[in-house]
């Protein structure tokens, strides 16, 4: 039947994305605590021969692998200490270093990949990380409120995003059903106190 052809294209989905960012990410703004701020951090993509000597001046976030190999050199650079945990990596690999790190960066290659939500959750609740957790890459209006719930507190939006509109995203829900890394509580435990 001819009509079946019309929406065949819908079936075609993007091929699987890589787990790591392929290029450096540099945004001029980021969102934190309900406001838009000027950004000065470059997120350096992982390459095979990357070493701390190659890092440009100024604030950078480094891939986890570089941190694990050269953490002393990175600390010696001064400035903001920021380490990326990619979707296929794990906060546990860096658990002992967390008190020396100012910022954990969670790079999103594709916003539909939800692994970093569990990373953020573990960083906050399992490892007690109190520094900044920043989502970068394919980060959009419609992910902001749940990312906030799992413990992400800074956002560099995808290129071309409307930052002013995005500020609205944090207020979409005033109630929650389950605990997360924010102060949300299990609905049944709240009701227990009422009854």
């Amino acid at each position, binding site marked *: 039947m001819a009509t079946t052809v019309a929406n065949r294209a819908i079936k075609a989905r993007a091929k699987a994305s890589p787990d790591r960012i392929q290029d450096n990410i540099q945004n001029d703004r980021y969102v934190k605590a309900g406001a838009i701020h000027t950004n000065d951090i470059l997120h350096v993509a992982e390459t095979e021969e990357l070493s701390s000597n190659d890092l440009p001046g100024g604030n950078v976030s480094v891939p986890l692998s570089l941190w694990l190999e050269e953490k002393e050199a990175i600390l010696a650079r001064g400035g903001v200490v920021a380490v990326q945990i990619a979707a296929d990596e794990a906060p546990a690999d860096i658990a002992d270093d967390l008190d020396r790190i100012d910022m954990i960066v969670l790079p999103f290659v594709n916003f539909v*990949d*939800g692994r970093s*939500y569990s990373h953020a959750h573990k960083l906050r*609740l399992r490892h007690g990380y109190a520094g900044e957790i920043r989502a970068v890459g394919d980060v959009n209006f419609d992910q902001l409120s749940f990312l906030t719930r799992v413990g992400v507190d800074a956002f560099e939006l995808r290129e071309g995003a409307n930052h002013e509109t995005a500020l609205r995203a944090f207020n979409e829900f005033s109630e929650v059903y389950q*605990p997360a890394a924010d102060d949300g509580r299990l609905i049944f435990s709240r*009701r227990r106190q009422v009854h």
Partner: protein
Amino acid sequence: MYQYDQVDKTIVSERVAQFRDQVQRHLAGELSAADLQPLRLRNGLYMQIHAHMLRVSIPYGMLKAEQMRTLAEIARKYDRGYGHFTTRQNIQFNWPELADVPDILEDLSKVEMHAIQTSGNCIRNISSDQYAGVAIDEIADPRPYCEILRQWSTLHPEFYWLPRKFKIAVTGASNDRAAVQFHDIGLEIIKNEQNELGFRVYVGGGLGRTPIIGKVIKEFLPREDILSYCEAILRVYNLHGRRDNKNKARIKILVKAMGIDAFRDAVEADWENFKDGELKLHDTDFETMQKFFPLPAYEDLSAGDARVEKWLNLDNRFADWYLNNTTAHRQAGYRIVNVSLKEHGIAPGDATDEQMDAMADIAEQYSFGEIRVTHEQNLVLVDVRESDLLEVWKALDAERLATPNIGSVNDMICCPGLDFCSLANATSIDIAKQINEKFDDFSELYDIGEVKLKMSGCMNACGHHHVGHIGVLGVDKKGEEWYQLTVGGDASNQAALGTHLGPAIAKDKVSDAISDILEVYREQRDDSERLVDTFRRVGIEPFKERVYQEVA
């Protein structure tokens, strides 16, 4: 029935506002179709062959009369006068306009309904036993647990972007009517030796391209740990499930790859960290929730009804309906009435707005205003007085809702198939019609007895063909529709996948092949054997021989 409190109301109405905003941003060009897609899916809105399709959640298949009226009104106002009840106890509307969907969701919210997470790679509607609360074989009412799981899983921030969809089913009865062994998580309520309630937890079951029977991950999970344990399973899956190939992304593939023991170890290791934390439930939580599902105010009646007895002898049509479509109830003087949505010539599971309104009226008058949806795509009135059965039958019959074919070959499960679905390879609705026409002699149907016939238009298996006593799968062969048959699948406690009969069969020969299978069964059956029992005893060969002898 569960009633929303202020928190539930706020979440659902804010969800409507959120979706309205997303649609407006899309129509204003700020949100691309590609970016809107996963968002609309998480509100049940698909793009199908001809139009959008909206899937509305019916948590564990329970509806109040007023909710059914709203569904009827939506079918009338925004659709073409009908809806399609699905194998996951939901309802789908096939023709809504995108711009209308926020209004539809708003109408739904007024009767405490929504379409949240009825699609997309997230935790879907919790399904359960359609006889929950009234079944004679029930250990405990599963509905309070279903509702607790529904709330916990709704807008769960960590598990909203899973590798693939995630389905949870709960049964509280010794005969599993919720197919829990074919779900991502299956929960079977059991009691331990101390008579405490808990769950046997299955993980990694499912149909689709790779049908797998769920494995037991926990023999006995105390009921207070249900949320934390599910959370641990979900976290391991979220982090480690495959994301590179959507055909291999379900949890069943992960469990198979890791092995159940390694998977269990990973879950238990994660669970250890938070099992006694905020997610631990208290006895009062279950008691509070159970109060939403009280026993109806049954009258003190004795079993049996003289007028029904009399009419069983006087009217064959009534007798056929009584015997096939009604079942025993725990409460003396009451029966469970199954309402067939398998009228001949109608797509299985479809109901018109008029039928939905009639169901609401009948439920209000005769069954405490409550209606259930079954995963076999029928409806149920669970609490009908025996003395009202004649009136209920007449009222249903007037709306063509009394076809006496529950449990028979004609009571088939069927996906929408190529007529509506953009994934399908083949038609399933045409085949349903062909089968209905072939088996139009009800006395023959009754002689054949219980046959679960399940049909899918493609390997995604929305029609659960793998677990049909007879399974039919539509395949595409060089642009033609062909059908592969299986025999001996079973979704109940004796979970089994069907055995392949042989090469695919041409479209116009499907009902002949099914007829052959049933003929072999009738020749070879012992005493009270059902088809599936005979198959277990004699194997596939006799069936195969007969079917292909004639085809060749």
